[in-house]
């Protein structure tokens, strides 16, 4: 163990404990404990700023340090680091977190070193490329897209959204796990029954002759159906 594994010095806000960013974590903990125990009464009651450099620390690892210090009468209150993982862990423990990357400003508000990925996140669904006939069912923990009609007597139950590129004449339950933000879209919205999360509705009695694309969603505690604009 070198002296540089653990460095303890005073500064205007209390004590600064700098830990090597690369040594094996458990041996650093052991070294820190040894160093502190050697001078126990001297550090009692101190406020500690921890500088871990580029080392990524999980919340549980940071908790270990905090406990180690607390057992010796010291309070960890601030963390300095170049690692965004450690920043997140410190924030999760309500510690002051300071970003110390020498290339960027250190006021903690700029975390732009992670380039923004062009890839859009999506959510999974199933695609059905045929008309769903009476008696057929589709169950999905994601979304459901149908290229075809959904005939009366057919049933779609999806945790997510349901999109019908065709005539919806059967039964649909979107947001089946309770997601009230789920939507149902169809080119001709004439379902036998339509449910979103815990809400249910049926088609109006009058027969419509001209199909038009519509979206069903929950607003103000009920299912509303709107023309697609």
């Amino acid at each position, binding site marked *: 163990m070198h002296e540089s594994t653990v460095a303890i010095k005073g500064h205007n806000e209390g004590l600064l404990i700098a830990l090597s960013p690369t040594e094996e974590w458990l041996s650093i903990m052991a070294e820190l404990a040894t160093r502190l125990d050697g001078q126990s009464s001297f550090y009692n009651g101190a406020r500690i700023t921890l500088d871990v450099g580029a080392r990524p620390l999980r919340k549980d690892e940071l908790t270990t340090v905090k406990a180690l210090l607390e057992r010796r009468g010291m309070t960890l209150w601030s963390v300095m680091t170049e690692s965004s993982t450690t920043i997140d862990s410190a924030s999760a423990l309500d510690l002051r977190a300071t970003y110390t990357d020498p290339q960027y400003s250190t006021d903690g508000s700029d975390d732009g070193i992670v380039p923004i990925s062009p890839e859009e996140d999506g959510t999974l669904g199933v695609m059905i490329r045929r*008309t*769903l*006939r*009476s*008696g*057929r069912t589709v169950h999905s923990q994601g979304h459901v897209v149908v290229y075809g*009609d959904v*005939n*009366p*007597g057919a049933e779609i139950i999806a945790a997510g959204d349901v999109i019908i590129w065709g005539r919806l004449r059967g039964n649909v339950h979107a947001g089946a796990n309770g997601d009230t933000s789920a939507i149902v879209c169809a080119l001709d919205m004439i379902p036998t029954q339509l449910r979103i999360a815990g809400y249910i509705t049926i088609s109006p009695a009058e027969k419509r002759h001209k199909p038009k694309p519509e979206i069903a969603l929950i607003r103000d505690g009920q299912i509303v159906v709107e023309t697609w604009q």
Partner: protein
Amino acid sequence: MRPNVGASTSNNRAPRRAKVVTVTSGKGGVGKTTTTANIGVALAKLNQRVTLIDADIGLRNLDIVMGLENRIVYDLVDVVEGRCKLRQAMIKHKQLPELYLIPAAQTRDKTAVSPADMIQLTDQLRQEMDFILIDCPAGIERGFRNAIAPADEVLIVTNPEVSAVRDADRIIGLLEAENKGPAKLILNRVKSEMVRKGEMMSAEDVTDILAIKLIGIVPEDDSVVSSSNAGTPLSLADNSRAAVAFRNIARRLMGENVPFMPLDDSPNFLKRISRLFAGGQ
């Protein structure tokens, strides 16, 4: 698979290759048995060698409609269970010697026969027949599975009425799942006057939902009742519109491109219906 048109007499033993056609519907009472009987008779009159098989074990009707009930000695279940040879169960029609019927059993039920039995039985007949028509029972259970197992082609009979169409849609879905499609549609018991007044579903309303090709539209005809009672299917002698419709279906089954028959006289009917038909298929 081209049927031998005009080449058959009862002495003709040239090998044939039968097309097995199952007539089904889902819903009961829409006219499967009447349709099977009339198409069978129409095909036989067009010199085809035809065997009709009644797959409605326990509720047999095809024998009654064909007027052959008092000539039943052996039936389908007797053949399957080995109590007789296949030939012994085939009842030959008196007026049309190339038309045969294998009746169902009345004292058993549909579990007496399996889909494999049906395939085996029809395979034995394929070389001697041009057409094997199977009258399917109503429902979607064992009887239905038995009847469609050997089918090369499936005809779905429906009425222009919401329950019948709903059941037909279910059947089509089951056929698609069994890779027995695409089925063709016979719209039976159409009352053109009611359609014109908007009181009955039109052919387009029906095909709008079912989305399969039409092979025939048969108008409602009172003489169906009396001919059933008499055991003489319409197609035998009659020239009523229904009889002509059944004959046209038979011709379309044989591959002919038969123009549809106008059920009403409105000019738009011709234009509208033409694109719903299966044409020469």
